[in-house]
Structures are given as C-alpha cells and as structure tokens.
C-alpha cells in the first residue's frame, strides 16, 4: 500500500527522524495561509502516488504567499505526468507546503527487502537525489548494502560503518547512525515493505534530515494496522481497482479490449501472455483467487463489464477442486443482470465440467466453452474479430 510523502514524514517524525517543517493543504487558499505562516518563502510539493515529481513540475519554490497560491492553483488544476505515472498522469488533491532547506549534500538511504537473503537490507549511497536505479546500474560500487540479521536487528556499529562509507564524519555521522536506526525501527514496527529517503540531506549548517520520504506498507500486515485504511487516497487509484479491492480481487487495468478473469496470479499472467500471442490485447489483469466461489466470480465479472473498453471476455478458471457448475452460475448471474451481449469464452477445468458447460450453453449468453488454454484464447480473439467485422458491416 502506498501513502503520500507528508504521511510518511508524519510517521517518521514519531520515530525522531528529522524532517522539514511542513503542513498539508487541500486548497490553494490553504496553501497561501501555510506559506504565510512559514514566512512566505516555501516549497510547494504535489502529493501523488508516484516518484519523479520534480521533473513533472510537481515541486516548486515560492518566494511569497501569493506566488505559493498561484503555483498551488496550477498544480490542483492539472495532472502530473512522471515516468512512473503513465501518460495519463495523476490528479493532485493534496499539496505539502514545506520550509525551504539549504542543501549542502544529498544522500540516499533506504530499508528494503532483499529476497535473495530473505532479510531486510539497509541501502545507502552518497549519490542521493537522483534515480538510485541508474546509480545501481552504472556505478554499483557507489551503493552500500547491509543485510540485517533478523535476531539482532540493525546495530549502531553496523550503521556507523555505512555512514562512514557514504563519507560522513564526526557528529553528522552519529546523527546519520541514529537516523538509520530510527528508520529501521519504523520499518519493522509499522510493517513497511520499504522506507526510502531520497534524498537525505546534510545542510550547510550540518543539520541532517529527510528531505523526501517514501513509505510502502506491507499489504499482508494491514490487518494489524487499522489506521492505515484511513490514510489511503482513493483519488490516486483507478476506480475499478478500488471496487475490486473491496471484494479482495486483484485487478489491474490494461490497454486492450479483451476482459480477462482468471483464478490465481500466475495463471492470470500466463493467460495475458497467451492472449497476446494469439493477437489479442487484454483489457485487464484480474485474479479472483485460487479458490473463488460463485459470489466472487459474479463480482469479478461485474467489474469487467463496467470497463467500457471491454469488447470480449475470456474466462480461464482452473478450479480443480472447485465445481464448474458453481463458476458457470456466477458468470450467468452477473452477465444476465447486466444484459451482456459481448462474446464470451469460458475455459474451465475442475469437477462437474459437463454440468457447467450445459448451464452456459442454455444461458442465452453469447458464450462458447473451451477445454484447453490455447484453444480458448484463439476462440475469443476470433469471436472478437467476427463481432468487429459485423459491426463494421452494419455501418
């Protein structure tokens, strides 16, 4: 789960991680008021669920409150496009107004999960403020990594080595040690999958603080952090993805026109791959879960039908222990309720396959069934082409 920069900074402050003074605002007038409190000179930062904001015009310096309002007005009025947002960009609904910081040097510090060692990992670099992946690719020697022992946690002498490795000395190095220990403690206690400070800065007066901050929560741990639900900014998410999440369905909108419903993430990815191979373009990724029931299948189908880009639907359920008649009923329930006339191909495997097929055949829907994955994918691509040809002929 994503949160905004200002929320991440709020959390980090409670762990004694120094951050610039700042307030969040939701209108241009509020931005102006906050700027005034800050003495006029301030930084106006758009809060979006994506990095690379600076280049997308999402971070600007204002020299007086009126200018801050003008900048805010402009930011609220448009979408910010960065390499991470896709071409459509993200709306700005919240703005962080921060005191300006005189940066001396910029560093990179993060706690992330290292899958290879199955441990959390402290990553630091003296090359901060830039795309760290670029640094990792071109000069890996500039990245310092420390795998953290789950029993001992991060210890100060270990953090000290890293602080020295990125070139810090004396009192500032000790501040950095505390900084690292604190973000690690935050990462564990708050169940984060990642805490990334880029940049951590040392000011010209030797003050060390987090200039930007990004926190991702581990979705699996949300059950023990109820407060996180209220932190979500739904304006940053696709509406269909929001309604899918309500039903515990994993849905991702894609660019094509064939809606897909599959059980299991791996099989869902493979289904998209085979559709593409057959010349089709998937409209979404949708995983109804390994053991979906009738209600979930119906809900998933409704979500696909809400997407107006969808011109055909491919269902691939390898139920195994799941009963195919139950799946068929879920599809019929949702499709009939929405008067769906789109071409549908259902590939099912599991118990009661014949009963499931018969239910679909008698449903009055424009549906065909397939026994094999490749066969099903070819069939839906062919049915879509046929439907498009018929439509062209009518015009």
């Amino acid at each position: 789960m994503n949160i905004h920069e200002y929320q991440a900074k709020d959390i980090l402050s409670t762990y004694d991680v120094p951050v610039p003074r700042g307030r969040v605002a939701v209108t241009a007038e509020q931005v102006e008021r906050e700027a005034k409190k800050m003495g006029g000179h301030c930084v106006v930062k758009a809060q979006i669920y994506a990095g690379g904001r600076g280049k997308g015009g999402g971070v600007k310096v204002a020299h007086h409150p009126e200018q801050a309002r003008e900048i805010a007005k402009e930011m609220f009025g448009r979408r910010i496009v960065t390499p991470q947002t896709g071409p459509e960009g993200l709306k700005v609904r919240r703005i962080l107004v921060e005191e300006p910081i005189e940066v001396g040097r910029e560093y990179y510090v993060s706690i992330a999960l290292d899958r290879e060692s199955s441990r959390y990992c402290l990553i630091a670099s003296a090359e901060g403020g830039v795309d760290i992946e670029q640094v990792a690719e071109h000069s890996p020697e500039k990245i310092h990594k420390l795998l953290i022992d789950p029993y001992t946690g991060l210890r100060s002498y270990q953090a000290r080595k890293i602080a020295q490795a990125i070139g810090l000395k004396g009192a500032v190095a000790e501040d950095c040690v505390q900084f690292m220990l604190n973000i690690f403690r935050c990462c564990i206690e708050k169940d984060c999958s990642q805490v990334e400070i880029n940049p951590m800065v040392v000011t010209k007066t030797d003050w060390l603080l987090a200039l930007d901050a990004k926190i991702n929560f581990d979705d699996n741990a949300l059950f023990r952090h109820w407060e996180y639900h209220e932190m979500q900014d739904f304006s940053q998410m696709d509406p269909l993805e929001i309604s899918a999440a309500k039903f515990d369905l994993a849905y991702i909108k894609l660019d094509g026109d064939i809606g897909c419903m599959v059980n299991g993430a791996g099989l869902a990815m493979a289904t998209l791959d085979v559709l593409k191979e057959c010349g089709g373009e998937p409209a979404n990724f949708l995983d109804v879960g390994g053991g979906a029931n009738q209600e979930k299948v119906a809900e998933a189908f409704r979500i696909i039908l809400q997407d107006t880009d969808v011109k055909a639907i491919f269902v691939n359920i390898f139920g195994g222990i799941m009963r195919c008649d139950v799946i068929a009923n879920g599809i019929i329930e949702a499709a009939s309720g929405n008067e769906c006339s789109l071409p549908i191909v259902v590939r099912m495997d599991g118990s009661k396959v014949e009963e499931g097929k018969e239910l679909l055949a008698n449903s009055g829907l424009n549906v065909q069934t397939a026994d094999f994955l490749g066969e099903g994918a070819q069939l839906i691509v062919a049915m879509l082409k046929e439907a498009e040809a018929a439509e062209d002929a009518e015009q």
Partner: protein
Amino acid sequence: MSILIDAKSKVIVQGITGRTGLFHTRECKAYGTNIVGGVTPGKGGIHVDGIPVFDTMEEAVRVTGGNVSMIFVPPPGAADAILEACEAQIDLAVCITEGVPVTDMVLARQVVADSKTLLVGPNCPGLITPGVCKVGIMPGYIHKPGKIGVVSRSGTLTYEAVKQLTDAGLGQSTCVGIGGDPIIGMKFIDVLQKFNEDPDTEGVLLIGEIGGTAEEEAAEWIKEHMRKPVAAFIAGVTAPPGRRMGHAGAIISGGKGRAEDKIKALNEGGVTVATSPTGMGLAMQKALAQA
C-alpha cells in the same frame, strides 16, 4: 521414489478445525495421505473424522509420531505455527496460508534456517507425490505417477502445467509449489537439489514468473550442478512494469524481475524454455529428447 513426501509421511494438520483446514484435510485423506493428527489450540481432545486433535504441536508429534505438518492457520498466527512446527522438530512444514506479513516471515525464515525443519511456502499450493501422498490444496486428479519433478512459484499455473504433462503422457515424481511471496522457505535451488539426487526423477519442469531474481539464481545453479534435463516457463512476458500482478512477489521494479532476463538466464543454463504457456508439456518432451 520421490522427494520430501512419500508413503511413510505422517501428516499433522495445523489449523485442522478451520473451514479450509478441514476441507483440505478430508481431500488429502481421500487421496490417500496418512493424516495422523491435527492441532487447534483450545480444541485438544476432540476428534474430527476420526483424527485426534491436540492443543500443541509438541503433544501432537509426541503422541502420533507425525513428521510432516500442513499449515492452514490464518495470517495473524501463521508464523507462530511455523515456529511451533520447528520447535517440535518436524521434518517438513508446508504453509498454505496466504497473506502472512513480511516482518513475521523474515524472522520465521531465520528460525527455520537454524532448525532441522524444511519449510515450503507460505502462500503455496503445497506438494504432491502422485498416487501416494498429497500435502496441499491441488486437485489430485490431474496428476499421474511418473518421473518428472515439478517446481513452481505459482498455484493454478502449476495445475495447468501438470495437466499438460499428464496429457503428454509424462507422469510426475513430486510436484512442489514453493509459493509466490517474497519471503519463502525452500527456493527453486533447494528443490532442484532434491530432484537432482532423486533416482526416480528423470527431468524437471520449473515454472517461474516475473519479480525477484530467483529464476536467475536457479539458472546459474542448473548450469553448474544439474545432471538432469530441465524445461521451464516464465509467466508475465507481457506484464507492465511497476504493477504488482496479483501477489506480492510478482512485480517488475527497478529494472529487475523482467521475464526476458529470466528466460535469457535459463537458456544460458541449458534449460529448454517454453515460449508459450500452452507449450509447457511440449518443452518438457523436447528437453527429455535432447538429453
């Protein structure tokens, strides 16, 4: 022969009285698995379907002599269940539970590594030695006893792969679903090692997906050590970067975890890679023919 589980496996189910736990206990029993006991704290002393239930793993192991555990405990208690299985010195713990917090798993995995217990999962379908023993939630009927080992990060995609093998006349020695989470117990290499040493496994089908670098590590190992033909498939060739495809493990981020890199590494390791998800059985046949 097989790996990890066989006719001698005595299985204890942790979380046996839950809805899912009980359902799959019955399915496994019907398949022929020797389920000797179950654990549900607070329910010790009762029997379900004739299976004795205990309050603790320690007691369950002492009384039944069980050596394998199958875990259905919900996420908040799943890591605890893994630790309890380790302390009871079980040989193999199979954690089916989906949604175990990462911080819990980081610690649990270290405890597992320092114990005699092997862990499969979490968030996995479990494992099966066809016709002999099933410790998991996969449909038994698609499997057929034979000589191909299957190892996979996915659940239902493994069923698809196994069905293709069976349709192609290739039975399986053991199929292991290692799970799709970022932190798991046994990884590809651990399972490949077992297949390499198993006299009754003649070839291996490896099913990977985007995210992480586990397939690349496996490819490296195969190149150096594997004495048997390996075929593979990687799901997510067409997946967009930066988006989490269903489970926490499957994401292309920071230029890492792309399918093309994995396929390249596997090819370099001498693995026959299926380019289409419909060609997994065929790729295995090809790999066997070339050997």
